[in-house]
């Protein structure tokens, strides 16, 4: 770490510590401060020309106070001493008007902790890369996509983004922790026309915490082009019940709903179809779903990896569903107390507001079939590559989303389809996953391989 970086770190820690002592002096019985600092860069190249360049840094401080079992929070992007005074006063004033809640409060001191080993979350090369090189990657990715096929004559552009952040969490019960994280990624979004002039767009991307692990721009551009071209000429299909195979990008969001359904906040309110289901069979025996905030992939920390959660508890590995049985709810300190359980270290902390619950690296364990084998086993069905909409109801499990993808005929991807919906109920869908792919790849904090679900309704023409 450079000398400048350690200087910044100690300044921010000093700020957090000042905020805490001011809060305690003003009457708080407990307090927690978070200080955030980040840099972002983005370049968008369209049709070979730089269209936008953005570069900036920002910072903010958040304070959560307790007066007994009343709590409130404040945040500010202004670090002046006048503003810090207002931050503290505001939090104390607000806390006084909230209700006594026997479950409110910071975690118990013995629960605090953090993963001490290096999680490889921060790489300097993200900042060191000259802007001209970043722009060049965006340009090459778009150019590769556009050169791939004559039907691609337009583009939403190629981009390259980087960001770095530094977060400090400190509380009055003795916890202090900090981490830095880096991110870089690029993508292309080509647009293809068919002979009737109908357009389709798609994109593909590569991302990592370090520039070194980014994929080849030409390969990403070509993949973006293939994904766009395969949508051309899409049509509706008839309304029917048929097998549905979900590509990893979409399987990931369907599996992601397991995390939301097991969210302790919804559980104690009876606002989830998993309420009261602990220890019950909620999915097929082939389903094991895990949240793990500690994963390091090949020397690089996962996108959902961090040393401690939003309340200062160490991150960990939690099995939510094991062979189809619901094993754990996910919680922060508050919801764990409501459920008479222990926090699973899933507290997520924004600048202001009570902590929420967030996933680390969340995934469905891979199966043994290749995606080709899964598709090959379907005589007549849908391969979904995109869903649209907000038709997921976690209270009832009802699921209804717009979809597009490819129709499967005799085990082959036959033609593109669009303007259809797929519907079912998640409670049934998780029990009807009849095949799981071996293609588990983390391109974000959550991941799932290809899955095949029986019994869904497709609505179309």
């Amino acid at each position, binding site marked *: 770490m450079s000398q400048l970086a350690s200087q910044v770190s100690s300044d921010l820690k000093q700020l957090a510590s000042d905020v805490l002592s001011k809060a305690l002096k003003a009457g708080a019985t407990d307090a927690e401060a978070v200080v955030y600092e980040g840099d972002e860069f983005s370049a968008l190249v369209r049709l070979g020309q730089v269209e936008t360049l953005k570069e900036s840094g920002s910072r903010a401080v958040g304070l959560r106070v307790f007066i007994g079992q009343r*709590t409130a*929070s404040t945040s500010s992007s202004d670090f002046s001493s006048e503003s810090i005074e207002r931050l503290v006063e505001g939090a104390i004033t607000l806390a006084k008007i909230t209700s006594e809640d026997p479950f409110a409060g910071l975690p118990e001191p013995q629960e605090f902790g953090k993963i001490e080993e290096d999680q490889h979350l921060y790489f300097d090369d993200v900042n060191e890369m000259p802007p001209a090189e970043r722009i060049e990657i965006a340009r090459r990715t778009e150019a590769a996509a556009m050169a791939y096929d004559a039907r691609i004559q337009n583009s939403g552009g190629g981009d390259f983004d980087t960001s770095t952040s530094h977060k400090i969490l400190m509380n009055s019960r003795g916890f202090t922790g900090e981490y830095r994280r880096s991110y870089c990624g690029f993508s292309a979004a080509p647009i293809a026309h068919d002979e009737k002039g109908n357009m389709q767009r798609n994109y593909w991307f590569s991302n990592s915490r370090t520039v070194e692990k980014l994929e080849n721009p030409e390969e990403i551009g070509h993949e973006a082009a293939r994904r766009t071209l395969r949508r051309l000429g899409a049509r509706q299909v008839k309304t029917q019940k048929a097998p549905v195979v979900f590509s990893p990008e979409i399987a990931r969001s369907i599996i992601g709903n397991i995390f939301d359904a097991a969210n302790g906040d919804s559980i104690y309110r009876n606002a989830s179809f998993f309420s009261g289901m602990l220890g019950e069979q909620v999915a097929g025996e082939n389903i094991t779903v895990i949240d793990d905030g500690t994963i390091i992939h090949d020397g690089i920390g996962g996108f959902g990896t961090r040393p401690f959660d939003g309340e200062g508890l160490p991150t960990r590995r939690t099995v939510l569903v094991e062979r189809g049985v619901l094993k754990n709810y996910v919680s922060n300190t508050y919801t764990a107390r409501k459920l008479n359980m222990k926090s699973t270290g899933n507290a997520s902390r924004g600048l202001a507001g009570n902590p929420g619950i967030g996933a680390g690296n969340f995934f469905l364990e891979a199966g043994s079939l290749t995606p080709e084998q899964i598709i090959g086993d379907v005589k007549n069905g849908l391969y979904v590559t995109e869903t649209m909409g*907000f038709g997921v109801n976690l209270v009832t499990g009802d699921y209804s989303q717009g979809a597009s993808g490819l129709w499967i005929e005799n085990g082959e991807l036959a033609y593109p389809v669009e303007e259809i919906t797929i519907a079912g109920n998640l409670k049934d869908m998780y029990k009807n996953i009849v095949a799981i792919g071996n293609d588990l790849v983390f391109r974000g904090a959550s991941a799932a391989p290809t899955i095949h679900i029986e019994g869904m309704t497709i609505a179309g023409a």
Partner: protein
Amino acid sequence: MTIPAPDHKRYFIEKLGLSERLMERCLGEALSAGGDYADLYFESVTSTSLGIDESLVKSASQGISVGCGIRVVSGERTGYAYTDDLSSDRLLRAARTAALIASGPAKELMSGFRHTDTPSLYPVAGATSDAEIAAKLALIERADKAARAFDSRITQVRAGFNDELRRILVAASDGTFASDTQPLARLNVFVIAKDGTNTARGTSGGGGRVTMDFFEGDKSPEHYAREAARTAILQLGAIEAPAGEMPVVLGPGWPGVLLHEAVGHGLEADFNRKKTSAFAGLIGQQVASPKVTVVDNGLMPGRRGSINMDDEGNPTQETVLIENGILKGFLSDKLNSRLMGMPNTGSGRRESYHHIPMPRMTNTYMLNGEDMPEDIIKSVKRGLYAVNFGGGQVDITNGKFVFSASEAYLIEDGRVTRPVKGATLIGNGPEALKYVSMVGNDLALDEGIGTCGKAGQSVPVGVGMPTVKLDRMTVGGTGQ
């Protein structure tokens, strides 16, 4: 009666210590490497959020965000930098960063700013941000009580009150010098109903750029609480939504989200300049039934989507998008109107000083037709009557859009019969409105809860529509 326009800029000059001279220096620095245009966007937002949950006030928070975004435009290129530190050296440094987009001789600045007055579509003094916290708490406590009193099957109630005061000042190299103060408030209620093993949810809410009085009339906390509770209880008895293509009748108000998704986004000028929208090249063509006229209107007093000026300092306006089914125009900002040689509709909006402005909607709605709502229902033998929705989404390029119904009923032999579960409806933007066969005379705007997302930026918007019949649309249920 004329009310003197409030002097929004005083806050920036007096409280934040900014001067016109410093702004001119920053613009000079921004254009030091050439470029056609530069602007400074100063923003200060204070926000408050209160939440009641299980009849306890469990959350209360306040946030302050202050900063400046600096943009340099050179041809089709945009450079952007922002800072949350408004000291002169940080501002000048951000201006130099944004300037890197251009490469050429320094541009001479115009001489002096052209101060413009903005209209007063909403209150500044007396906005909810000035009200006592206790008065806001009383609103959510009332909502909690009313929802619980509605029916013994209501088991969980959460209510929240969120408001903000956003002050903005735009100073630009074209002489623009304009400022505004934009209050915004919203009350939300979320409930869970339980009957045996059957569970359902219900939500409701509303608000706008309003004073506290707004919540004392027919838009009271009790109104929203009863709406949320009524929807949840109704859903307890809902049957499977049908699947397939059928006639759909949309009720007045929030179902106007159809217009926002089906046509609104596709008519934003940036997508049309780049020819990435399914509507590109369709100006002057029939894109809807002759019964359909759609406008975007930022001038409606007190509305959530209304703005005295856009985030580039231009006055907002009423823009006709579709007139009697013919596509009339796009929503544009400074960059796109210049590049396309089209009028600027004052639609340049942004989420915050972290973001580059782009063409966005304000309040988008369909004008009244001549049909009676009950005649519209009577005309349907078998179909869906959808009166409330969650969100929607659109793929601009192929025109496909969805919106998800949260309250809907079957229509059987001209009568509204059983409630059905939520379902997503899907259609094709440039085609869907051609199937509008009846338009009611009961235009209503939504309650004031809409937030629109585009390219990672959220802005408050409104939607509206009278009762409308579409002869066919695909409904994504699981039933017959």
